[in-house]
């Protein structure tokens, strides 16, 4: 008698990607749209701008 297993990994992985897609889609509907003319420079180093401070270590 075989030990029962969860569904196959590719299916679960696709469900995880669908979850992320759902969160991003929900956000795209509700959040302020990104202004393509005011996006930050490609790299923070050399930009002259301070980081956002939105990090796990910030209170």
């Amino acid at each position, binding site marked *: 008698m075989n030990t029962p297993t969860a569904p196959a990994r590719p299916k679960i992985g696709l469900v995880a990607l669908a979850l992320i897609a759902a969160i991003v889609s929900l956000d795209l509907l509700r959040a302020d749209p990104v202004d393509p003319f005011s996006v930050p420079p490609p790299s923070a180093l050399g930009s002259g701008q301070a980081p956002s401070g939105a990090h796990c*270590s910030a209170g």
Partner: protein
Amino acid sequence: MLTRRLTLLAAGLALVAATFSWAGPRAAFLVAIGLGFGLVLEGLRFGFAGPWRTVVAERDARGLVAQLLAIGATAAVALPLLAAAPGELAGAHAPVGFAMILGAFVFGMAMQVVMGCGSGTLVNAGSGNLVGLVALLGFIAGSFAGTLHLDFWTGLGTLPVITVQGVAGDGGGLLLTLAALGLIGYAAASRADPGKRLPPLRLWVAAGLIAALALLNLVVAGQPWGIVYGLGLWGAKVAEAGGADLAATAYWASAANAERLSASLLTDVTSLTNIGLIFGAFLAMRWRRSPDAPAAALTASSWAFVLLAGIILGYSARMAFGCNVGAFFSGISTGSLHGWVWFAAAFGGSLLGLRLRGLVLVPRRPAQVEGVA
């Protein structure tokens, strides 16, 4: 096989291109860096929770030494970079406090129950592990819940932020960091069984790639690699969509967090690398000739424990100012004392979690699956 791999390659490039078109070059770079993290962590089997278990349970120090190598390599470049560009780059610096220590201890315990830390939960979910996916749902909810009470926890008492570079200067701080990492690595390797002391080539390569990606993250984002902030933000976004008013909460009312809450997720650096990491883990899993066997099915009560452990992981990581990535990896590699304290407390919790895992995760018996009483 070739067709599938070309499709996976195209999917990865399409994700980066789509992010570029929606949110610009920095966002695209960060998603690409996240993809790299996912590919390396899953593809080269570089983990955090697993090596903490094997160093204790199997006297195998190879994974832990690889972690320390990655942190040391990152610190060797990150600390001089932070000193050179203080107005553009910030370290993962947080205060040591009662709640921070408690949070790290609880996080270490929970990560052994679900066998996944901050990065590990994302990797496990992306690579098709159902335990990881269920834990991720809990992690998102828990890290959001943690933001609602963070002011209470920090109010219990914290020290000022202390960094090694603040104590010993820029050069001295780096030397202290490398010396401490070397000492811990030596102690772990000395205790390990012969043949389990130094990492194999795979882990050396992985450690180098993780360090390179972490440095790219710092240079592009202006702040170190993190996980938990993004997950808490996702939870907050979902809660707001469900009608919650977060403007009255201390955490989300602060200027930086309120801005993130109203702006697109595609402008949040941690969310972008998290998305890339999950996608990268999926690509690495599908790249293999045959994916790993699926996880064993669990009893209903065990799934409830996995969800609860995910919630605890998220909540405790918020209390502790980060998980194994934001606090342990990025905290230590950018000189924060809280990273070292997090390591000690979480390792203690991990020892307890190893004992709990066998008690709460019970595989389902075949008879139950077939409906036979």
